[in-house]
């Protein structure tokens, strides 16, 4: 196994009824790498990352994580491995506070444990530090409910959660949808920070311009097949990539 390799999906096939959503797709992410996953609607990007994040299971194919063959049956399996997925709606509980969301499902507790008491001071302190780390410079108390946050701030909380629990791989599925210009810049900055602090990312976005600004490598899917694997955004133009996505140009593999 290559030491620089974090996750490798091999020969993944997925059918929905008679429709083949993915056919023999292999996909690799290295350590400290941001991979842009592109493709038109229905190309299979979401299916592929849902398999990786445990929301779907593949009909055939293997997944290797840090060189070990793994079986991801549900989202908890993926989270335990260190694969965190951030969806466009952030998957936060809007009624709960920032700190309670950050630690949801893994709340630190005070002794004695039979009283089941959360360590709210520890949660709030950790949340304050984390919010700084992901670049929220305003003073937002960690007890603020998510419903009072803007879209960009919510994404920041979701990214902070992934970073805090030392996820090795952060999957961002359309993280910049419905965000304003400033908030989008914020999210792109978080993604760069995440890489600089040792995380790998898969970045999925409709907006190719956003992808071009942060990723190291672009992978393109078309109709369930991988059609490009190693596009360097620094050596390629957006127009060329668009042509690959729509199928006007075939790149030699």
């Amino acid at each position: 196994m290559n030491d620089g390799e974090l996750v490798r999906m091999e020969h993944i096939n997925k059918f929905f009824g008679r429709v083949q959503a993915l056919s023999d797709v292999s996909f690799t992410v290295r350590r400290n790498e941001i991979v842009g996953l592109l493709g038109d609607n229905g190309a299979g990007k979401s299916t592929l990352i849902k398999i990786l994040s445990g929301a779907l299971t593949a009909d055939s194919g293997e997944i290797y994580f840090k060189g070990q063959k793994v079986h991801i049956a549900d989202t908890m399996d993926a989270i335990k491995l260190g694969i965190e997925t951030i969806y466009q709606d952030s998957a936060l509980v809007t009624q709960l506070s920032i700190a309670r969301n950050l630690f949801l499902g893994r709340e630190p507790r005070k002794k004695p444990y039979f009283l089941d008491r959360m360590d709210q001071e520890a949660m709030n302190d950790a949340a304050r530090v984390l919010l700084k780390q992901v670049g929220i410079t305003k003073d937002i108390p960690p007890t603020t409910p998510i419903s009072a946050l803007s879209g960009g701030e919510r994404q920041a909380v979701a990214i902070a959660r992934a970073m805090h629990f030392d996820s090795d791989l952060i999957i961002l599925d359309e993280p910049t949808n419905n965000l304003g210009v400033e908030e989008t810049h914020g999210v792109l900055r978080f993604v760069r920070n995440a890489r600089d602090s040792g995380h790998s990312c898969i970045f999925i976005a409709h907006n190719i311009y956003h992808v071009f600004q942060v990723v190291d490598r672009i992978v393109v899917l078309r109709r369930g097949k991988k059609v490009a694997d190693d596009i360097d955004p620094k050596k390629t133009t957006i127009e060329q990539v668009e042509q690959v996505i729509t199928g006007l140009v075939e790149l030699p593999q």
Partner: protein
Amino acid sequence: MSPTSLPEAIAVSPATRSSPSAIQRLVSRPEFGPFVLLIIEILVFSFLSSRHSVSEAFLTSFPSFLSTSNLSNLLDFTPELGMIALGMTLLMTAGEFDLSVGSVFGFAPILMWTFANTGATSLEVGFLIAMGVAVLIGFVNGVMVTKLKIPSFLVTLGMLLVVRGSALYITDGFPQRTWSAAGPLKDILVGDIFIGDLRFRTSLLWFIAFVAILSYVLTQSRLGNWIQAAGGNPGSARARGVRVARTKIALFILSAVMAAYAGVTSSIRVSAANPNSGTGYELEVIAMVVIGGTALTGGRGTIIGTLLGVLILRMMRNGIVIVGVPGLAYNIFIGAIILGMMALHSWLERRHHAGT
């Protein structure tokens, strides 16, 4: 939420950009509306009932609203409905509700007395059997809602009919004999306690204890965080490893057990076990919970609010009679309070969480 030591000038979003003062924070709490309503209610009833007994000669023997005899009377039944409301609060915070509580309230004492009266078991064992059956009822409700994905409205409506039907069938529709109620069970559940003239029951102490315990659970414990998450966004809670189904099943069991406990308590207190008792309680209890500020849609709940909601509706029923409004008009006031409080909660919600 615990207080934070951060500076006051906190810009979160346009809706909360102005720094909230202590008073503004107090007013924005969901319990504030019901609290004010309760105070107004107490003042109005005290005033009206005292004026009554002075001006109308033949009513002088009528107890005034704040007399010890009336308060004792008020405190008899309040903890019973209150217990059901506490269980319902946690269940509704988790995004579900339970229409079968009124039937369980009637069924549990029937079961207990049937076992005791036929000589099959002692009253105490009968009580344990009734509570055990309540656990089973709650478990079935919970499993059908979480595993078969049937809305709780339909599941618990079906259970309402099954349980009520069972109570009627077992008893042939007749009340059960209950005159052997005196004993340790009665002392524990509804024993008399006197403070001067004021008589209250041990059921009030149980109720206060459960208010404290469940309030702690909802606001301080990890389980409380899971309950709120299960109601607020079950999908993401599940994705974070929260055992949503298990949490909801436990709360359905809690709801049924609380209803059974309340039914037994009530039956021992009034020395009657009628297969029809508890009819319609489910809606009164849900009204108490939502008046207190718990969201019908889940994700947000308050035990203290429910305590206020329980007191508001019980005092309304009691006070209306004391001040001489025809009892049949009771529902008009209850309905108006529900509509008014819902309007208030929705207005506060939009004011504080604008833009969502």
